[in-house]
């Protein structure tokens, strides 16, 4: 199993203890696309942050490609994020004063075997905009840059936090199609969180998270191409 989450628990102390994850279990094979569906406050972001190594768990384990990341110390987690994980955010999080190409280099700069910037730019269809600044791009284009930045290190695991949350339907289809293409071309395992159930059709596995627990897991025998997704 490429990704294995077992009995994951997490609480936040905001004056009172608020449990966010209450024993989450989740498994994914290498090269799959997984979608975590759930309403606001269900613990989606906390779960993906723990899997990405940017947050810590109170209990349970997370194994990625055979490595138990819940046992890693802070420095080891840095190395884990550096080597294995790519991030895509809802609001893109591009560095505003760097050009498109330079935003991608932010990640390739610290990667051992990065892909060529031009190659990923071509893959996301932005070769002609490499010298533009983020402000000069549309929302969809900015998300493409964000995807290019995530895949340039050729990560084993690509974590996407509401990647289409700020986009219209047409642009969202384009972004999701790109993620499917990345999955097919580079073999990256993709775990995406969303509250939009329309996206579920393109995933191999769909995990419904409710009140900090996995309420339901669906494995799609047939996946819908992103271009045909509706909501």
């Amino acid at each position: 199993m490429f990704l294995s989450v077992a009995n994951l628990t997490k609480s936040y102390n905001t004056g009172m203890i608020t449990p966010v994850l209450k024993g989450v279990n989740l498994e994914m094979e290498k090269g799959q696309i997984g979608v975590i569906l759930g309403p606001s406050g269900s613990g989606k972001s906390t779960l993906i942050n723990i899997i990405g190594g940017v947050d810590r768990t109170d209990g349970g384990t997370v194994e990625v490609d055979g490595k138990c990341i819940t046992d890693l110390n802070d420095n080891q987690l840095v190395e884990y994020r550096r080597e294995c994980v790519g991030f895509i955010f809802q609001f893109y999080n591009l560095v505003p004063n760097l050009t498109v190409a330079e935003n991608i280099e932010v990640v390739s700069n610290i990667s051992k075997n990065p892909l060529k910037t031009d190659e990923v730019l071509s893959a996301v269809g932005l070769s002609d905009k490499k010298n533009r600044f983020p402000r000069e791009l549309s929302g969809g284009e900015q998300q493409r840059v964000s995807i290019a930045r995530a895949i340039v290190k050729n990560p084993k695991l690509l974590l996407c936090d509401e990647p289409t949350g700020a986009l219209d339907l047409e642009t969202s289809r384009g972004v999701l199609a790109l993620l499917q293409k990345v999955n097919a071309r580079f073999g990256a395992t993709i775990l995406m969180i969303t509250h939009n159930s329309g996206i579920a059709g393109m995933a191999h596995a769909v995990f419904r998270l409710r009140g900090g627990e996995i309420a339901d897991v669906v494995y799609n025998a047939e996946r819908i191409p992103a271009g045909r997704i509706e909501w």
Partner: protein
Amino acid sequence: MVMALNKRVWRILKEGKGRYIGIVLLILLGSFYFIVATGISGNLEKMVVGFSEEHRQEDLTFSTDRPIEDIAALEDQSGAQIEAYRQFDVKLPDGELRLLSPGTQINFPAVLSGRGVEKPGDILLDPKFAQMHGLKIGDPIELNGKTFHIVGTVAIPNYVYILKNLYDVLPTSGFGIGIVSSADMAAFPEAVTVYAAYFDGAERSVPAENINAQTAKLHELLSEQGYVLSEWMDAKSNKRISMPWGNITSMKSMSFPVSTAFFLLSCIIVGVMVMRMVKADGVVIGTLYAQGYRRGELTRHYLAIPVLLAAAGGLAGALLALPCVKPIVDSMLAFYILPGQGITFSPFNLALAVLMPVALIGLSSFLVMRKILQKTAVELMKGDEQKAKVNFIERALRLDGFNFNTKFQIREQVRSIPRLSFLVLGVSAASMILLYGFTYNYSMDVVMEKGALARYVYPLEYNFKEVRNIRDGGIPAGAEPYNALRVYPAGREAVEFYLVGMQPDSVGFILNDSQGNPLPRNQVNITEPLASRLKLKAGDTIHFVSKLDGKTYSLIIDGIVQAYGEQVIYMPLDAFNRMTGQPAGSYRTVLSSHEINLDQSQLAGVMDARNRDAYKDLNQTTTLIVASVTALAVLVATIIIFLVTSLIIDESRSTISLLKIFGYRKKEVWKLILNSSMPAVLIGFCLGLPFMLAFGNTLNGYIAETMNMLIPMIVNPLYVLISFVLIFVVYEVTRRLGGRKLAKISMSEALKAGTE
């Protein structure tokens, strides 16, 4: 509603307290410096000018071979007030006391303690002499067999700096002055008569600036009447009078530019921060507009922070400066005898110290925020102001050839031009102050080492009261005569210099050109500082006027003498005497390799350069200034680099957070963010050097107009290196402080970006 909004002001200040303390400190330094500099120059000026005016300081002193017969007639003819006074030097076992009769119209004494001379047998002493010899009021003192009673201490305007002889450079150890009644003076028949002249209409704000024509006329009248004149010296050339002027001029000329520079630097950084704050609050401002807030209300709200900072800094600086002025003035006056009039401060300057930063910073902040506050509620609520804009430099930069770290650091710097300007200008200012302190100190050392003292191969110089002649003999081997005249270039009375006539086989002077080659003695050689001040080169003709008799002469320059500070033209003695109408072989000074046994009564002064360390005492004030300037520069650099580092970190919070998410190690983030200022600091330091030279030369040129000595700014590479190291130590320390702040930025900032 507005009151509720104003509660934010305190919260905003609390949130960024480190940064706001830095800004207050910068403003504080500006107003502190302003009050200290104007306080010192104002009080020194008040003491020196006040004393000279109230006690009618002489414009000219001279002696004659016989008493002037009709002083009243001479006064009518010359337009000068002339008073004769008597002086007599009494040898003591451990020193010498010059007894003077009190001036009644010119140079009248100021009693510093005790009472004045009321009856025969009373004596007033200069306080340094009294202290040095352990004498106090009420003590008796025996002088030439007569007992006097010390009734007080005294200052007189023609002995502010107590030099035994007019041509002395340093005070004579154990020497002092005393005032006795005219009746007591009559008991010393050997006493000599000295004249003091006071010209009506002479410029009083600086010593004797416009009296050359009047002194020349008086000289002519006395010469016509057959008097042989000696020790003829105007107040400007008279070190007993003019020494304190250097301190006043330098402080006065530096007070406004330096403090204004601090305030302007503060304007830039406050402007940058106000701009950031207003931009970040764009949506809130738009919402408040939509709810009925007026533009004026919001302008006042956002202006409150810069105005509060400026007022707090200005007030604190002014208050802290008040107690500092007296000890500095006292230390500067340690060499001088002046009546203490108490330290006073100009209410205008005190108000200016607070109002100037408030006005400058308030105005710059208003201009910065006006553009944003003028937008409509709808425009502001769209949140466009919060989105990072790309400036023209960022857009124009093509950095494809660089590695990523370099690209990132360049972009980080050019992202905010005002911030970059503040850093470069701030580091330049700090480097300039630092380099100026070191360079001025070094230049003074060089002037001492290689200046007038180094010119003399023979260390002793005897100045005679009257002109002598070589034919009369009396010049031993190892000694040589020269003649000299005080002159000024036609049309530039402020630039005075000596014209020296020397023997063609002279070995007592070193006259080398800039390559170190000896210059011939049978030609006209001008020192480099004078040539540069008058913009003269070899082959040019100089026209000048004798200060003694107002006659005009011309000379063609043959060579330039490498020199530091000195303003002299050297020419052959015969030609000198011929040109000035003196008999061949005339001289007034003897340079000697050894002590010569001469009749002391014929001497106007002796310069003894055998112990050069003694001259370093003159530099004590400079050392104090250099130490405080160095501390000031380090403080300024620390504040500026800290402010910029803190701004960079704040402006890059989301990027730093993002870099951490992507797996950047601590040191990598540190290098990317905090190393980016290195080139700007380097450029700032490099600019500091030419800025310092321009500032120093301008300032010294200005001082030269009053002090008539141009101190060159001589850069010592060692001090440049020390300054460089100091600035970079400050940079490194500030970077480490910034590193702690950087470590505190959490990854959640990027994860939550856009969701709040």
